[in-house]
């Protein structure tokens, strides 16, 4: 029996059935996989935080290598001594602080509601690290990351990631050679919390000068680089009161 596929009723019925089938399929898939996906995202966050404080499996000057997903939960417990949540002047300890959604907190702040700021205190080889999460805008979409400083406000490590920067250009902010440049830079300049800028003309491509609050930019990724600078600056200004108490101790 041939169906008359040109009839309006058929077209509408087809569209309706198609939407129901596709909707059901995707909804089923999303709910079936959501537990596994959020577990993956949780482990990734732990990996990123640990990466910033130098707990990773990097070798030589090669590529970024996180601590394995099988070991990360244990390492997170070992190295992260405390997870703090700053809310106004209040500082509370919270074991799930790393799960705080920065984007949500940002829109809370915009809506005039209280903003929670997570910060992680790590310890490795008798040295304390303060790891601050960051979030900002690149060229195409969100960029985010973590910066780990010691109590002298010297950067001990960073981690950057992005949602959709251009491969080969802006996407290189998550490459080792870019992130490693930040290590040893100070976020202070004459006592001011200025952060670190990604600079194009700093005449220091090998990044030997560690007191200039600048790292060498990526060619062809000016806007992403500016986004990174702005992100660091903004995050540091948010955490300034907290960082000041650490620095004065």
């Amino acid at each position, binding site marked *: 029996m041939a*169906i008359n*596929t*040109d009839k309006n009723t058929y077209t509408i019925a*087809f569209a309706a059935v198609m939407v129901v089938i596709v909707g059901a*399929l*995707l909804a089923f898939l999303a709910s079936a996989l959501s537990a596994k996906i959020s577990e993956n995202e949780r482990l990734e966050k732990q990996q990123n935080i640990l990466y910033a404080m130098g707990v990773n499996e990097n070798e030589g000057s090669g590529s970024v290598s996180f601590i394995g997903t099988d070991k990360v939960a244990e390492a997170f417990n070992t190295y992260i001594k405390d997870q703090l949540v700053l809310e106004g002047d209040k500082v509370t300890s919270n074991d799930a602080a790393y799960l705080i959604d920065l984007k949500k907190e940002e829109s809370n702040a915009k809506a005039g509601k209280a903003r929670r700021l997570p910060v992680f205190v790590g310890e490795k080889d008798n040295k304390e690290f303060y790891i601050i999460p960051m979030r900002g805008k690149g060229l195409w979409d969100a960029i985010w990351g973590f910066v780990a400083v010691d109590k002298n406000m010297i950067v001990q490590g960073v981690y950057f990631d992005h949602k959709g920067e251009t*491969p*080969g*250009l802006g996407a290189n902010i998550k490459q080792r050679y870019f992130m490693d440049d930040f290590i040893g830079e100070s976020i202070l300049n004459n006592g001011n919390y200025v952060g670190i800028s990604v600079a194009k003309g700093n005449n220091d491509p090998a990044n030997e000068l560690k007191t200039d609050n600048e790292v060498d930019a990526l060619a062809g990724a000016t806007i992403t680089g500016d986004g990174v600078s702005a992100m660091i600056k903004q995050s540091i200004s948010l955490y300034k009161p907290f960082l000041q108490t650490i620095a004065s101790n």
Partner: protein
Amino acid sequence: MGILSKKDAALILDPLADNNPITIQVLGICSALAITAELEASIVMAVSVLFVMGMGNVVISLMRNIIPSKIRIIVQLVVVATLVIVVDQVLKAFAYELSKTLSVFVGLIITNCIIMGRFEVFALANGPKRSFLDGIGNAAGYGFILVVIGFFRELLGSGTLLGIKVLGDPIEKTGLYAFGYENNGFMLLSPMALIVVGIIIWVQRSRNPALIEEN
């Protein structure tokens, strides 16, 4: 070819050369420009399109007799979008690292005009087996050009291949760089991809003059 008849084999082989979707039909250029700055990204994109196109062509072909012609384009879009989301979700659950590399391409796969073009021209008029072969063939033709462009852009633009420094270290001046060689930053920008595509088209047509259209 054994299993495949001559006609079926042509479905796979034609798009690789004389009927290549990028160099002959000049389709799918947008993604060819956007993601070929690195060889790895080109390969990931090629594999993703191979999967989506093979599957999509089969699905459309199976439904070809019941799709209302008035909304066929919408149906095609829904099929591509669904497949891409399914792939993305499954990868996120079981191959999280890979899915992060791929996430940039999801949007680009959906808008790839080669996919829609093959649905419209081929899958709506042919059986599932032939459609599958056609999808695989065209995706392979597309992927092949992508990899070639990615190879040259990464090699000449960054001096690396798959992230490995094959020409030496530009900062420490080793390998080729010791002789004053410099990376060509232009190669990383999209316009150079277009020029590389142009060169491939030129080479291909001068080797086979039958491909040149008459005015």
